């Protein structure tokens, strides 16, 4: 995936970088944790993302840091998921959560299950929209999609989620 390219370059200095860490590290973690459902993996990917930010600080426009971070985090997450097959990953998640048995029926876990059933792109759109409050344009910048595509993918993702939630609720 093409990373955000920047013509009007301005070096991100150390102070700005540290401020970015303060502002976005937890938000990135939340996004990755929601997607991967694994604390350590999410933490590792946050670290990788900020390592790349520091290495590429001279190529990044200061105002585009936010979208750059989520783009890189998203790409790293996709690569990570490709390396570990999705099934293994989901199995690992349920192994982690399955200790007390009842948690999978709670609303949050139903939602998490449904999220895991979505494609990586659909899940990322939902998380960026719901957790980070990005608009269609910003999500498009992160995922290199246009606004219409984002809206269509978001609709499909939500409809799929809605159907799964409805089915699960009926099953319970």
């Amino acid at each position: 995936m093409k990373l955000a390219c920047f013509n009007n370059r301005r070096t991100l200095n150390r102070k700005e970088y540290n401020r970015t860490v303060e502002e976005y590290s937890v938000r990135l973690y939340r996004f990755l944790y929601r997607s991967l459902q694994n604390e350590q993996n999410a933490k590792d990917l946050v670290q990788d993302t900020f390592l790349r930010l520091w290495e590429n600080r001279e190529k990044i426009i200061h105002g585009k840091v936010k979208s750059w971070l989520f783009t890189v985090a998203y790409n790293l997450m996709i690569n990570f998921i490709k390396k570990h097959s999705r099934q293994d990953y989901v199995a690992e998640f349920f192994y982690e959560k399955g200790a007390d048995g009842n948690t999978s029926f709670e609303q949050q876990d139903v939602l998490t299950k449904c999220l895991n059933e979505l494609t990586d792109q659909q899940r990322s759109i939902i998380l960026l929209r719901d957790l980070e409050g990005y608009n269609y344009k910003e999500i498009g910048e992160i995922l290199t999609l246009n606004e219409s595509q984002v809206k269509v993918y978001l609709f499909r993702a939500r409809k799929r989620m809605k159907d799964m939630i409805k089915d699960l609720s009926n099953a319970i």
Partner: protein
Amino acid sequence: MTINKQNIDEVIFEYLEGNLNLKDSNALMLFLDQHPEYKAELDSWEQSYVRDETTHVAPDFSSLKQKSKTMPYVVGGIAAMALLLWGINQSDSIDTADSKPEPTTIEQRGDITPNVGSEILDHKEERADKSVIEPTIEPRNQTPEIKGDDGIIMKEGDVEYTTVEVVNERKVSLETTKTNREASLQKVALPKTAEEEKNKRSKEVKVIELNSEGL
């Protein structure tokens, strides 16, 4: 906007996304009132929104911050400067405590004013027992310059010297003032001129007498 069974999902989605205006929102509410079976659809759609209700605490990422590499050098530099200044201060205080710096001029030595030569000359007897340690001679040209025939600048008279004596470690400028010397010379010269004048006058008287005799 027409709302029907075919587009109800799209309309609910737009409504929850906040893309519907007031008129269309009211139209949707009216449709749901007329078709209550779709109210469950609206609830399901609402549940598809992810809310951050997890109690999961994010780890601390402050270790990701970059520490300044120049900071230790700056601190080290400041410390070195402070140490250097402290060292200089210490050496100064040791110097002042152990030995006073030797004054180089009379004024610095303090209790003697520069023009005390005449006073000291007046008290030669008192000065007699005081040994002269380092007489130094400083040339001072007080005479005007005269241009010779060949164009070479010459100085009239002898070069006068100012003798500086150190009496009991006191440097005293003994200005053997010109006035003293001139005064003594004038004293010697005065009788000469009186005699000359006398001789002149006597000669004149003699001439007058001779003239009167001649007459």
